[in-house]
């Protein structure tokens, strides 16, 4: 008997009393009505609580704010599908490096890069969670992980209040990263410390009209 056959047979005999499970009651909240301004306010509140930097701007202001947030960077990596316009005001001294299919950056190259700019797929206001799903404007998981500073663009139209509302906007089989603040640990005396292995700085631009 292979291990698989044996485990499955053990399961059958363990369940020989044929338990019938009740149907799953899904009476928790799956939809909500919240005006856009309140959604923004709630998400901002959560992100600040996680010690992320947050700005609420309109779409025309993106280049200006990207430049301001990244002024101390030496180099910036971006996914190939990111709108070029967003990086248009970056000072010339900052090297801009695309990560594209066929021209992937190595881990060492990513490690030598100071910042990364990505877009995002959907954000959950109630828990302060931004979800990246590997679309061309968000890129591979590694690029938003290795550089120490992550600047993330969140279109206001992509904010929902509840987690179940976000689920329906996701393709679950894509590589997904859910981000709720910069990396953190509470492992020493339960004192929360921001910044361990993931980016130590998370800046979020919430953008109206995008």
């Amino acid at each position, binding site marked *: 008997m292979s291990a698989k056959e044996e485990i499955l047979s053990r399961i059958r005999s363990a369940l020989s009393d044929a338990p*019938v499970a009740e149907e799953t009651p899904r009476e928790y909240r799956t939809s909500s009505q919240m005006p856009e301004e309140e959604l923004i306010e709630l998400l901002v509140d959560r992100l600040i609580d996680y010690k992320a930097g947050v700005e609420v701007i309109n779409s025309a202001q993106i280049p200006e704010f990207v430049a301001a947030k990244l002024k101390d960077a030496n180099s910036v990596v971006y996914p190939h599908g990111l709108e070029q316009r967003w990086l248009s005001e970056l000072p010339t001294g900052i090297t801009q490096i695309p990560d594209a299919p066929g021209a992937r950056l190595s881990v060492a190259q990513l490690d030598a890069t100071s910042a990364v700019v990505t877009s995002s797929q959907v954000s959950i206001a109630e828990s302060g969670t931004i979800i990246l799903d590997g679309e061309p404007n968000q890129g591979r998981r590694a690029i938003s992980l*290795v550089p120490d500073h992550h600047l993330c663009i969140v279109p206001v139209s992509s904010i929902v209040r509840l987690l179940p509302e976000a689920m329906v906007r996701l393709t679950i089989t894509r590589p997904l990263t859910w981000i709720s603040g910069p990396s953190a640990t509470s492992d020493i*005396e*339960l004192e929360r410390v921001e910044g*361990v292995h993931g980016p130590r700085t998370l800046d979020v631009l919430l953008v109206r009209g995008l």
Partner: protein
Amino acid sequence: MTQVFLGMPAPGHGNLFEEEPFPQAAHRELGNTQMRKNLRHATHTIRDKRLKVVGELPDWEQLRDAGAAIKNNAMANLEELLLQFEKNFIARGGIVHWARDASEANKIVTQLVKDTGSTEVVKVKSMATQEIGLNEHLETEGISAFETDLAELIVQLGHDKPSHILVPAIHKNRTQVRDIFLQEMPEVDPNLTDDPSKLADAARTHLRKKFLAAKVAISGANFALADTGTLGVVESEGNGRMCLTLPETLITVMGIEKVLPQWEDLEVFMQLLPRSSTGERMNPYTSLWTGASADDGPRNVHIVLLDNGRTRALSDRFGRTALNCIRCSACMNVCPVYERTGGHAYGSTYPGPIGAILSPLMTGIEAEDNGSLPYASSLCGACYDACPVKINIPEILVHLRGEDVDTKRETHKIPTQMDLLMKGGSWALGKGKNIGLLEKALPLGRLMAGKDKKIKKLPGIAAGWTQSRDIPAPPNKSFRDWWSDQKESK
């Protein structure tokens, strides 16, 4: 060695046993005041945070109901769900392995690592690999496993054992952590202070090179989604993302009970888990991956589906809901026994209230070594109230105590002290005359007590009672005697 029949649920092996009876271990751990202080602070802090974020959700109880029902369904349809998961995981380029027990899982993982030619692996916190003793096994095979979770790193560098499933190094305070780092990290600044952010920094530097160079990572999984073949890891520090994203080969070791029927179920557990465990609205990072993706993350993706006693637990119809556990640790943080004894007293990888039922369910209560765990509770019920998937831990504890007494009676053909006591009890309580006779012996008890009218040491198994408390000496007259005296004198 218990006899095992092919295809029948078999007991688990590995780090699932008490190393000594709980009362003995607890007695020693109670003497560790530093540990107790750290633990009390920790459990109370998380407790308060948890209450606050749970209170924010108006539908918390509905989420718990859904969570419990989803898990019950998953257990009732486990075979079908595992097959479905396997099919979808393979279709997406993943490779599935099945392991009957700890040693089989260890062998599979070792071979997979050897096939890559690597002699080093990075690891992200996984209780399943701790349960099977994977690191120790890899060590004997010449493979070094590096724990990357800060707390696990502290435990590993300190040659210690985890004491809490969420914050495994919680028994160490910052100064103790600093001392471990100074001693075990050759590159560390000798002036390292005990400021937690400096300590986190030191860990970042220490592990950075390992992450960037790692060819193989080993992880656990918080859940597997049957209908898509997706795996998920919930974490805080980003070490999980490093392990799950950068290496070429990823090996995940997961208990078979972690499978969920459908991907929508995530919306329930991703609300229940972070709030119950760290008391946060959401943990900093969650990674989800489905097999191997062409251009993103590891190209060789394996999963080892582990039984190791889980089917043994599943076969106990009163105890099987223990498998619903999502390892949030809320039950530990509210447990008055755990708060005082700490995680080490339980011996097993799974401490606290859930460990007190899960370990004996997985190994079998007849595994003599785990017989005392179901008694590690005052049955106060706080764990049940806190549990996000509503596992009725007190009820299962009582069930296991019953089973323990039954097996002991069967195995020891000569009556145990407990049996004699029980027999004596039924003789005494059976007839008023008998109890009257016994009461005549009460003044004897006064002889056992010292001048302070306290009995400090009882004989036999009753000694357990006096290990941590004195009992007052009995009165020189029983209530019944006193009552009849009163009547006569009237």
